C-alpha cells in the first residue's frame, strides 16, 4: 500500500455545525454537529460528502462540478455566502464551522433551497440574443472586435450560483426583487453588440421589483466568485431606466 503524503493525511478533526431540516419530520431547522477528520486539501464540500458517506447518509446538499463553474454548491459558511467546493477546511480550522443553506431563500431540505423563482426571473429578461440586424446562416457569422466582446464578457461569466441573492438585503426584504444575478444576465445581452433588445428588457425591469428595489449596497459584487460585478449591472440600468422615464416619448417603435 502506498504511503499517503503528509498533506493528504486526514490528521486533524474539525467540527461542522450543519443546519438540518427534514420537512416531513421537523417543524423547524436545527443544528447538528459533526466531527470530521480532514486533510489540507479538503473543501467544505468534501467535508459534507464525508459526513454523508461515513456518518449520516440523509444529509442533502447540491453539488456537481467540484471546481466552481456549475454554481450548485452555494451555501452560508460561517455566515458568508460561499461556494462549498472552493472554501477550504484548512482555512476555517480549528472551527467550529457553521454551515447553513443560502440566506434569503426558503429551505427545501437541509442545505437545499428553493430556486424556482430565480429561474423565472432569469427567464423574464429575454435571456437570448435578439439580433439588431437579422442574419441568415448563408450571410455568415456575426463579427465582433475584442473591444465589443470586452463590453459584455465579464457579465457572461455568471454561473447562476445565487451567492449574490444571499448577500442582497433588499432581496431578503423583497423576494420579488429581480435581483443581481438576473440583472447580470440582462446586462450580458444588453451589452452585446449583436443584440437589439435593450428596450424590451428595460420594460421588464423598470418597476419597483425591478432595478428600483436596489439601494446600491454592493455586497453582491463582493461575494461573487466570478467577479461578475452584478452591482454594476443593476445600477447602470437605474441610469438607463431613469433616462427612459423622461425620454420614453422619444423611443423608436420596436421592430416587429
Amino acid at each position, binding site marked *: 500500500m502506498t504511503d499517503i503524503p503528509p498533506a493528504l493525511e486526514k490528521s486533524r478533526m474539525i467540527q461542522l455545525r450543519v443546519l438540518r431540516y427534514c420537512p416531513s419530520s421537523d417543524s423547524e431547522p436545527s443544528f447538528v454537529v459533526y466531527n470530521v477528520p480532514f486533510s489540507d486539501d479538503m473543501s467544505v464540500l468534501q467535508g459534507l460528502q464525508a459526513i454523508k458517506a461515513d456518518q449520516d447518509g440523509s444529509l442533502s446538499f447540491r453539488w456537481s462540478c467540484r471546481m466552481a463553474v456549475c454554481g450548485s454548491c452555494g451555501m452560508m459558511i460561517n455566515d458568508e455566502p460561499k461556494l462549498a467546493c472552493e472554501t477550504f477546511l484548512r482555512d476555517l480550522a480549528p472551527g467550529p464551522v457553521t454551515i447553513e443553506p443560502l440566506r434569503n431563500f426558503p429551505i427545501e431540505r437541509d442545505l437545499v433551497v428553493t430556486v424556482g423563482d430565480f429561474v423565472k426571473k432569469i427567464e423574464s429578461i429575454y435571456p437570448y440574443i435578439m439580433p439588431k440586424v437579422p442574419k441568415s446562416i448563408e450571410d455568415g457569422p456575426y463579427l465582433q472586435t475584442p473591444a465589443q466582446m470586452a463590453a459584455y464578457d465579464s457579465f457572461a461569466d455568471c454561473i447562476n450560483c445565487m451567492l449574490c441573492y444571499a448577500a442582497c438585503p433588499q432581496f431578503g426584504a423583497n423576494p420579488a426583487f429581480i435581483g443581481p444575478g438576473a440583472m447580470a444576465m440582462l446586462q450580458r445581452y444588453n451589452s452585446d453588440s449583436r443584440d437589439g433588445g435593450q428596450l424590451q428588457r428595460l420594460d421588464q425591469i*423598470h418597476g419597483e421589483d425591478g432595478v428600483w428595489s436596489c439601494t446600491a449596497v454592493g455586497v453582491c459584487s463582493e461575494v461573487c466568485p466570478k467577479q461578475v460585478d452584478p452591482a454594476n449591472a443593476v445600477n447602470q440600468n437605474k441610469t438607463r431606466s431613469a433616462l427612459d422615464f423622461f425620454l420614453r416619448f422619444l423611443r423608436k417603435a420596436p421592430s416587429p
Partner: protein
Amino acid sequence: MKPSDIGPRPHRSFAPVFWLLFGAGGMLSALFGPALILLTGIMAPQGWGLPARFTDFPHALEFARNPVGKLVALAVIALFLFHGAERLFLTLKDMRAGALPVLRAATYGVAALMSLATLILLLLIGF
C-alpha cells in the same frame, strides 16, 4: 418559455424622479459640500480667512436678492434636502421603522415642504 408567459409587464415605478433628485443633490454636495460647510459653518462665523462682515445682514440680503444668488440658494438647499430625504427614507425602510406612506411623508414630504418654503422665502425677500 417566452417572457410573456411569465406574467404581465411590470408597472413602471415613479422612483426615477426621486433618484435623479438624489443624484443631483449627491453630486452637488460631493463637489461643493465640504467647501460650503467650511465657508458658512466655520470660516465665516469664526472670522478665519474671511472678513468679519462677510456674511453680515446687508451682505447676506444682497446675496439673497440677487437672481443668481437665489438660484444658488434654492439649488443647494432643495437638492441637499431631497438627497438626504431619499437616503433617510431608504435607511428607515431598511430598519423597518414604520409604514411606507408614513416614512415617505416624513422624508420626501418634509423635503418638499422645506424646498417650497425656500422658494417662497427667496421670492418674499425681493430683488
